[in-house]
């Protein structure tokens, strides 16, 4: 059964994620750093958005804010109808594992669990039985069938990133946040991973917000958001 918020998120073409006046300042005057300085952004269901910007422009901070990993100095992030900053730590974690999948530049797999265990971990933590049929499908698509019982350390970078994508998809989240997912991969593997990410998200109707500084990669997206000095410039 879906809660009200979850039902809304599943709804086609609705605005799934919204920020208004989002600010994040670090330090105090005179060393004040305005990592984010008033971001207003709305993203619809199923959209593939690329966030681009130079190093230090605030794009990673934005992604952290969207995923509820960090708290804003001002403004708000709303996913569905839930304002992230209003959730308590416990609720926030539960909300995150149900609705947001992360893909990091450095994969961030749990080193002590094998590939399959890594993929099903978020669902298991949620106390749900993994949807084996669905997971088989993802595994097949991502070409991980042969590696299910390997430990992350024994995989190549591309393979590890595919596991991370599988993990992000497995709990069927509405939103996938990807922070330079191809940053550590060679160009050939990069385009392969991206293609996979795009096909799977289309397949399962998921929203992707991806950070990159590679314009070629960004061009694959439905929309490009350009950030500079904590503001959206285009």
């Amino acid at each position, binding site marked *: 059964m879906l809660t009200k918020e979850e039902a809304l998120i599943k709804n086609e073409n609705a605005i799934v994620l919204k920020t208004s006046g989002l600010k994040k300042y670090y330090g105090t005057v005179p060393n004040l750093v305005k990592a984010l300085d008033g971001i207003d952004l709305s993203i619809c269901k199923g959209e593939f958005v690329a966030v681009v910007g130079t190093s230090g422009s605030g794009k990673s901070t934005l992604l952290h804010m969207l995923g509820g990993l960090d708290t804003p100095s001002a403004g708000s992030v709303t996913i569905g109808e839930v304002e992230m900053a209003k959730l308590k*730590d416990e609720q926030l974690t539960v909300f*995150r594992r149900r609705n947001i999948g992360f893909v990091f530049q450095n994969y961030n797999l*749990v080193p002590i*669990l094998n590939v399959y265990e890594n993929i099903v*971990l978020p669902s298991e933590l949620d*106390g749900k039985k993994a949807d084996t049929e669905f997971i088989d499908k993802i595994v097949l698509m991502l070409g991980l069938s042969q590696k299910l019982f390997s430990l992350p350390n024994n995989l190549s970078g591309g393979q590890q990133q595919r596991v991370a994508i599988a993990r992000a998809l497995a709990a069927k989240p509405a939103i996938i946040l990807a922070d330079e997912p191809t940053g550590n991969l060679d160009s050939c593997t990069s385009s392969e991973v991206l293609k996979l990410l795009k096909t799977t998200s289309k397949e399962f109707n998921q929203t992707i917000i991806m950070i990159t500084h590679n314009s070629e990669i960004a061009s694959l997206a439905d929309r490009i958001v350009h950030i500079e000095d904590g503001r959206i410039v285009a």
Partner: protein
Amino acid sequence: MLSKKNSPAVKKLTGRIITANRPRNRNVVAAIALTAMLIASVFSIGMSYLKSTEMQQIRLMGTTAHVAVTNPTDEQVEKLRDLSYVETVGLQHNVGLIKSTPEMGNTTLSLHWYDQTEWQKFRLPAVEDMVGSYPEKYNEVLVSLWILHNMGIDDPQIGMEIPLDYYLGEDREVVQTTNFVLSGYCTDYVYIRSGNIDSIYVSEQFAKASGNTVQNNGAASVAYCDSKDIDGYNQQLTKDLSLSEDQKIKTVPMYESSAAASSTAVIAFAAVIFFLMLTGYLLIYNVFYISVAKDIRFYGLLKTIGTTPRQLKKIVTGQALRLAAIGIPIGLVISAVLSFAVVPMALNMFDLATGAEISFSPVIFIGAAFFALLTTLIGAAKSARIAAKISPLEALRFTGAHTRRLHKPSTSGGKINGMAWRNIFRDRKRVVIVLLSLFLGITTFMVITTLISSMDTDNYIASYVENDIILENNTLDVVGTDNTPKQKFDASFLAELSKIEGITNLRTTTMEKMEMVYDSSQFLQHMDWFCKKLDVEEKLTEQQIQDNFWGYIIGLDSRYIEEINKDSGNPIDIEAFERGDIALIGTDNPELYKNVDVMDISISSTGATEQFDLGGFVPFGFKYAGGSMAPNIYVSEQTLATLVPDPKIYKVNMDVENDLEKQALEKVKTLTDDDYEISRTSKLEQQQAMSDTKLLMYILGGGIALVLALIGILNFINVMATSVMARKVEFAMLESVGMTKQQLRQMLTLEGLGYAAITTLLVGTLGSVITYVIFKLFQQQADYAIFTFPIIPMLIAAIIVFIVCAATPQMAYRSSSSASIVERLRQI
């Protein structure tokens, strides 16, 4: 609703984390095992100690009963047996009195009868080495071994004849003689407490025939259901039995102050357990904190992908629980092995015959397991909270080293000394934990070594045995006996004594009974004090006082006076003392005698009279404490010899040159053994008797002290090693900007030495104060303890601390610095 469903994932993670952290697990398991072991060992050693002191008390009391009701009627006895709060009722009564003989020394023996319950339930548990049985036939008796020994029977046989002279009933005039038959013997200890008052036990038939009854000459011994509120039960009993005016409920002395004593013991135990838990907590906390801090990014990652704070907490405490499941049984097994195998083995190895009773009770182990588990959970709780609270982003940045904000800009910026000093105080929490664990460990080590060395049984003996060998003439104790004073230490005996090689400082003390003229204007205050001391309530007439105004005149060697003068601000005139012009009064309250100028006395045996001026005071009971209403007075030996020809020598004190003690004692023994009219006290024999106890204390106490000191040092190693590991990247950074490995090591060594210096300073000041305060508290229990500052243990501890502190950071660094700078820098 979630917590039940998600357990498989949490369990899986917990299990995997444990398998991935083998070295840490070993540390945690060792810490938990150590805690469990220490708690269990302290419990079991403590219980053994309590048990054996309780047993000793019971033996001294001679009974396990709580109270006795005097002169109970048959109805009262019936009533007693029916009362719900009374567990056991035993009956006893006095049958007669044994006629005193000089061989018996100052002992008083009676004939006594116990019913079966009294003997089986109350008396038998308080005696040892029971052979034979309680008398059943008319003329059978049960006698304790010390009485048999005094009778000259050292090898008693059941069935042998024991002839006894005794008075029956109240009638002290008619002496009867019976050849009793020995039906049993045992070792009892009552006479130690009662001052050589004891009983020979007779059969029921004999008791009945004597005409004495429980109602007229006896008592009913009562054991209540529990010993917690003896006073309360006594009040209840007084009501329930409607006791008459003459009847009393007498509480066995052991229970009179038991409430206070046991609460002190409980507090002491609680303090020890608290301390053990604290040290255990520090260890476990450390290892967990370090482990979580090291894996903080991992926990942050788990949180990012959806592990809730509650689940993270469960993962950390779950690890603690699983490790406790291994560590606690190990600790308990080690403790069991220690208390059942090693300690007795060590005791055997040193040939100790004390038969230290090792108490075993499952409660000890359950309790130890519980406290160890509690310690583990508390120790892990903080780390669990840290893991739960971590924000995923912070986890990515976490380095484990917080720096205080305020830094004085300094011109000596890059100096290694300054860096080392600042590094010490960089993480306040770490400083506190390191210093606290080192400080606690070393201080406990000091406290325990101080207590053990102050408890030295030689001090104990020296505190009450004034000379190496002391001989006493038993025939001069005339009160309550029909002893005739004899000159046991005549000139030839003394000549023999002084011939023994090594004997020095031989002094004799003579003593005669004397009567003093009572003058109320002089001695009123003395009599007030006397009546108060002996609880004399009725008003004594002058005549009554004069009739009993006798005491002893004691002839002292002048050397005693010289020694007293040394410590006195008001010296005694030795010349006048030797001339016989003055006499001294034995008292601890000289102000009672400020009206006394002269004393008129007459010697009882010769009737010679003399008048002495009061010339000063010696402590009450100096050389001899007996007497009657008059104060005992002290004159010089030669003065007493002028009043009485050949005054009786009561005491011979002598010292023995070092290294000759043993052979001198043997020779004195051959002179005095088999003579029951002479009693002997010697330092050497007492020391031998207590050497077992001394060794036992060194083994047990020293072991505990060492373990506690080790915990402190282990903790330090632990924290230091991990702090160096955590700063790996920082060191790589320092190297990359030009600090040589040599300089780095120098800095680390300085850091370690800084910790060592601070610890030593703390232990030397605060630790010494704590040691002294604890010693003072302890001294209230054992007043013979002498404070000796534990200089050597402290020096050893300081040296070890310095070595460990200087070496640990280096070793930790060496093991982490093998990789190249770049590799190490990338590990961030």
